[in-house]
């Protein structure tokens, strides 16, 4: 089971990547940054970063303004 933002849970599947997970979650956020088990996953790696069962994923929504 993958946990997202300490709240949502998704069944883990063999070979599941960050990109698969984002598609499954249907996020419509324009810009996000993602960590898996406390480590940043660069956007370029979403398609090949394999999630393990019980991974803790955090998705930060980045909004304009600073």
């Amino acid at each position, binding site marked *: 089971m993958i946990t997202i933002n300490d709240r949502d849970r998704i069944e883990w599947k063999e070979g599941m990547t960050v990109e698969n997970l984002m598609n499954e979650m249907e996020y419509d956020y*324009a*810009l*996000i*940054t993602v*960590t898996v088990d*406390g*480590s*940043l996953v*660069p*956007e370029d790696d979403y398609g090949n970063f394999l999630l393990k069962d019980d991974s803790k994923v*955090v998705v*930060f*929504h*980045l*909004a*304009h*303004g*600073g």
Partner: protein
Amino acid sequence: MTGIFEKNVPGSTEILRRSTVGIAGCGGTGSNAAVALARAGVGHLILADNDAVERSNLNRQCYFLRDVGKVKVEALASLISDIDCGVDIEAYRIELTPGNVATVFAGADLLIEAFDRAESKRWLIESWCTSFPDRPIVGASGLSGIGRSSEIFVRSSGNIHIVGDEKTSMEIGLCSARVGLVANMQANVAIAVLTGLEI
């Protein structure tokens, strides 16, 4: 500088004096966070921004009418010096890019992300975490509009800490109080991380 830190939380000043904090962007969040960090006792600041102060910045950024037209990092360094908190400042008028972040902030123990654009926030977080995976970054996301103070929160994962509502975008307008709230929360998180106190 005599006595300036005598009301500080006991034990915090000594640690903060030895700390170096990078400020990536010296606009709304960056300028206000830098002042808070200097007043708290942070010993070294690395300021980086490529802009000059404009009149439209004065509604939320920590500058004054006399600063309009001046380079932001120089104006900010000057006003922090006026606090007389003995902070050592490196000021770089530079366009930060994924290629120079690690060089500009090589000496920083912690980075404050204070960019405007979400795309820039993302590459800055990625560049920092890739170059310095063991060093914390405190970013801002969602600080626009008015009110809704209780919707501003801190979320952390590993060495990444994000302050804001993660929702509101600057197109709806920016207000001094809400921008300052997030900037001071960023500084507050940074101080807690550097001193090892609870976030």
